[in-house]
């Protein structure tokens, strides 16, 4: 089954399209240093939580499992290891996590463009936090467009967060991608594709009792390394920042900065 999927989805010949024979199980180390500003009431400007620095380390495995009628591919994202340290007011501590063993299903087009993240809510909330650190998903599946050496092209980086009925928000980075050519990345040569663009997030969550609005504005930039021979992601350095606002009867705002590095593990 996987072999057939492999043959069917490899249609591109551009440097960073995945060739037919290279769709495989992929394993990544992810390290994100985040700064979360104080939680501030947008009306009274009162702070209800102090600023926090956080250091998240993950090891994830991406396993292709099924092909959809529209040509998109379903892959299981499994969290194999996870650690989170936070620093508040100079005091540093480890946060207990229940992420290891959890999974989500990433549905992407063959170029990596994210269509859906099923079970993303199981990686969210207390002890999991990937609703906040959701940049993990585009970090491992950034979907650069086909762009010739030295040239640039536009393509949005998009991904949703879905939960129980009525909960959904959508992220979009209006990215301009620039092919910076081939560089040595460790033992391998990799195309370096730089991107940057404004980041927006919109989405309501409706329940019988209330409507919650999720909004964010910010900026995303980074450089994706794609193995020259296979077109597979080998590295991704990024710096994304946004101001997130969650509103129900009250609105709370938080600035969030994510500086991260993704590296493929052999």
């Amino acid at each position, binding site marked *: 089954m996987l072999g057939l999927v492999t043959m069917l989805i490899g249609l591109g010949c551009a440097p960073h399209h995945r060739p037919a024979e290279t769709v495989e199980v992929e394993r990544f180390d992810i390290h994100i240093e985040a700064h979360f500003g104080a939680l501030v009431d947008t009306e009274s400007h009162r702070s209800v939580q102090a600023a*926090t620095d956080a250091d998240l380390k993950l090891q994830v495995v991406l396993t292709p499992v099924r092909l959809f009628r529209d040509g998109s591919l379903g892959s299981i994202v499994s969290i194999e290891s996870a650690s989170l340290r936070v620093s508040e007011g100079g005091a540093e501590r480890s946060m207990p996590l229940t992420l290891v063993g959890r999974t989500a299903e990433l549905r992407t087009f063959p170029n990596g463009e994210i269509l859906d993240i099923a079970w993303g809510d199981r990686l969210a*909330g207390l002890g999991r936090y990937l609703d*906040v650190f959701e940049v993990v998903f585009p970090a491992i599946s950034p979907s650069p467009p086909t762009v010739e050496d030295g040239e640039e092209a536009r393509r949005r980086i998009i991904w949703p967060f879905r939960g129980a009925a009525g909960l959904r928000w959508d992220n979009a980075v209006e990215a301009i991608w620039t092919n910076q050519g081939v560089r040595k990345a460790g033992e391998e040569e990799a195309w370096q594709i730089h991107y940057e663009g404004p980041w927006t997030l919109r989405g309501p969550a409706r329940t019988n009792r209330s409507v*919650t609005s999720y909004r964010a504005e910010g900026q995303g930039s980074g450089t994706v390394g794609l193995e020259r021979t296979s077109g597979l992601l080998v590295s991704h350095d990024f710096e994304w920042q946004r101001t997130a606002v*969650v509103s129900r009867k009250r609105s709370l705002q938080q600035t969030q900065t994510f500086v991260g590095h993704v590296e493929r593990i052999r």
Partner: protein
Amino acid sequence: MIWALLISAVPVDPIGDPLERYLEIEDVSVALEGLAPKLKACAVGEDVTVSLTMTLSGDGSVGLSEWEPEAYSSVPCWNGVLSTHRFPSHDDTPERVRLSLYVRGGALVLSPVPELEPRPVGPLLLFVGGTEDERSRIEQYIEGTGKEEQ
């Protein structure tokens, strides 16, 4: 031609429902239908309503079961049934399920609607690195129901 044959051979998913990686209440209800005959095979005594809280581990086994009243005569037999029964496996931490067992006139009936204890996740999108109580405080602040609002 070869491509057409290959494409026709691949079992595509036309609907795209998420893979069953986690338990939902419907899964628990279906699994309980399989459990009911085994529980009914245990002899029952006087009429009683027994509440059962159990944790379902990722491998489908029952990790912990609590009965109320614990001293009811059928509980040891029911515990034996639970120790060998397998619920659907899942990728989450152990899930807590609550249901009632009704013994009436020598027959056993399970509550038709079990409860799958939800995991509190809010507030989403904002980093709140404290305990569940701290997260609850922030959630209530947004909701306008916290102490600070009164």
